[in-house]
């Protein structure tokens, strides 16, 4: 029997029982759609993870941390906290790291909390000092009129993450973006801004005297020997922005919350302001005196090749530092995503399994109804294999139609999910939450057909084994 004839007979008998076919297909539609949507959520998360890693220096990047230095709002490598090291990351460390085999580059980075003042707003920001090379490597997506900080500039030039505007509060009312849902009225590129590095002094000053708006404060006295007792207002630096990360406050990316600057300028400014005193965040002796060296928060090491990342990471670990690599991070995240996807996919699979039972039931019913017809075509010489194929195709057809409609439904749901998420914003994800690649479409349709055929297999076998005598028995 020809394939086209088999197909014609199978689809013909489905058409004959429209309502039953529709209901059975509906089961498959729901099953397929739930699998596809569930997996697409996992894939969407995975995709934004990949993008994030690409933005933070790619797979060859290794982050080396020593004893906690500086102040960070966001701890990215909490899992490393267990084995606290005694070593600080200093200029010596950077030199040491650079000498290691397979190291392409090593550069320090310093993260500290500071305050930005602009007009009637004040913002509590995380200032990240990077070397100019590292800044280039970060590969930030800046707005068109942005540039990276000038390497030779004496003043601090800042690059703002696109989420920084949400961290400003109106002085007095204390209301910020998250309360009012209105962005502060600051032109980050042109407005004058003052940076306060000494947060403690700023808070102390704020408690005692309402902060006066004395602009043009460049000539303010240098830190000198301000001890804890004296209430000296902190030094304010006039800073300006040289760039901003592209995107509005609703599009999250790896540079969303940070403010970047040149680490060398930052360091010299800190050392000048806190001459003789302990710089906030820097390690001190038991008596509160600063060490001679300057400690960094992290060192960013680039391996020359992906294959060497792991051995290099272990090597640095042996030197006594905490190490986290994007590769390791990715690996652990992939494990988590695999679990999440398996869980989500499993929920979908249950509904497809129920649909499979529906298919099997429909096929059994159809065979009972058509006992006589099956017998007749057997007597007329339809081969056993053809009969089996006919019923398998019928079941597979239900799976296929269900798969197609299920995928269409999934696409609609995916669009709806992404739309709603984008509208509400702030999930902390870059890009779409739900992502359906082509392979998922094909795989899910193939799976739906497969499930249909498995469900139809035993009914088909039963049809094949029906006795032709049943047909010629008279009614």
């Amino acid at each position: 029997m020809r394939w086209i004839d088999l197909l014609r007979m199978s689809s013909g008998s489905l058409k004959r029982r429209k309502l039953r076919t529709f209901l059975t297909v509906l089961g498959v539609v729901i099953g397929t759609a739930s699998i596809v949507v569930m997996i697409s959520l996992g894939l969407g998360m995975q995709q934004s993870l990949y993008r994030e890693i690409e933005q933070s220096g790619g797979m060859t990047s290794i982050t080396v941390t020593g004893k906690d230095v500086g102040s960070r709002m966001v701890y990215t490598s909490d899992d490393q906290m267990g084995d606290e090291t005694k070593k600080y990351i200093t200029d010596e460390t950077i030199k040491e790291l650079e000498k290691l085999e397979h190291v392409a580059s090593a550069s320090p980075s310093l993260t500290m909390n500071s305050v930005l003042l602009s007009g009637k707003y004040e913002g509590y920001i995380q200032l990240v000092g990077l070397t100019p090379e590292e800044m280039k490597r970060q590969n930030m997506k800046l707005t068109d009129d942005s540039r990276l900080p000038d390497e030779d500039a004496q003043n601090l030039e800042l690059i703002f993450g696109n989420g920084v505007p949400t961290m400003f509060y109106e002085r007095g009312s204390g209301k910020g973006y998250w309360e009012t849902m209105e962005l502060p009225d600051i032109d980050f590129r042109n407005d004058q801004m003052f940076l306060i590095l000494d947060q403690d002094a700023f808070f102390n000053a704020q408690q005692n005297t309402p902060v006066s708006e004395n602009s043009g404060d460049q000539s303010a006295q240098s830190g000198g020997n301000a001890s804890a007792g004296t209430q000296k207002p902190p030094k304010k630096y006039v800073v300006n922005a040289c760039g901003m990360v592209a995107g509005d406050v609703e599009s999250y990316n790896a540079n969303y919350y940070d403010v970047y600057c040149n680490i060398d300028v930052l360091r010299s400014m800190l050392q000048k302001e806190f001459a003789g005193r302990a710089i906030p965040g820097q390690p001190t002796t038991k008596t509160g005196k600063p060490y001679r060296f300057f400690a960094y928060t992290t060192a960013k090491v680039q391996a020359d090749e992906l294959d060497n990342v792991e051995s290099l990471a272990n090597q640095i670990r042996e030197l006594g530092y905490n190490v986290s690599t994007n590769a390791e991070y990715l690996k652990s995240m992939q494990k988590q995503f695999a679990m999440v996807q398996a869980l989500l996919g499993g929920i979908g699979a249950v509904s497809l399994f129920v649909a499979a039972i529906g298919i099997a039931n429909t096929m059994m019913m159809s065979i009972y109804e058509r006992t006589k017809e099956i017998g007749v075509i057997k007597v007329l010489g339809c081969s056993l294999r053809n009969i089996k194929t006919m019923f398998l195709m019928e079941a597979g057809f239900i799976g296929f139609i269900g798969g197609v409609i299920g995928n269409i439904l999934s696409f609609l749901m995916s669009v709806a999910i992404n739309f709603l998420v984008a509208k509400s914003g702030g999930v902390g994800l870059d890009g779409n939450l739900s992502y359906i690649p082509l392979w998922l479409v094909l795989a899910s349709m193939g799976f739906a057909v497969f499930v249909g055929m498995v469900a139809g297999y035993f009914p088909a076998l039963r049809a094949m084994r029906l006795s032709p005598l049943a047909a010629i028995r008279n009614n």
Partner: protein
Amino acid sequence: MKKIIEVKNLYKLYRVGDSIVRALNGVDFAIYEGEFCAIVGTSGSGKSTLLNMLAGLEKPTKGEVIIDGVHMETLNEEGLVRFRRENVGFIFQSFHLLGTMNALENVALPLSFRGESRASRLKKADQMLDLVKLKKHKKHLPSQMSGGQQQRVGVARALVVDPKIIFADEPTGNLDSHTSEEVMELMQQVVKKQGKTLVMVTHDDHLAAYADRIFHIIDGKIVKVEVNSAKEAKKENATKKEQTREQKKETKKEREREEERK
């Protein structure tokens, strides 16, 4: 003449509860090519069992069924199906047309099992329906046709595969006597014209009279094989009738001519 069906020492035993029923109890006979045979018996005589065994729908308990040189009892189910597909046409008592297909598609159905293309299938089916005088009902569904018309579709379906043998199981059992006569005449005529072997099972002696030979079966045994001499006579009668009819026509015409002259 060539033996197309040969049955040797055929037994079929059924177990019903504790007792054993002998549906066929040692049957021997042969049917020759181009013959029209009727197997006649009361219900329960084993005639249907015999037909099932000839068509390979049931396995004999003992004995041989040789059709066209092939031992049916040795074939497996797939082999039997293939044998039926290649060599056998079937006419059923309750027609067994597929309700979703129209007459043309029903007739073409057995050809699709052979892998013929749709176009050639429908062409052959069309010719067959012409042959059974159903020109006007080709697009009708079985539910839109009378019993007689449905059975004619059944006859066309049996013939379309160009089989060596046609089995008919009480082909007029669901028809009234007048339609029965029509269908029987059609079958007889078509089978003779195409030189097919026809084996018909019936309980009706009157219908059996259309056959060349009649096998009487009682309690699983063939008790009498009757060569139908009456049929020959009938044929002669029919030709005589035709002759007289023609003569009458001629006389009629002559009379008309005479009247015209007047």
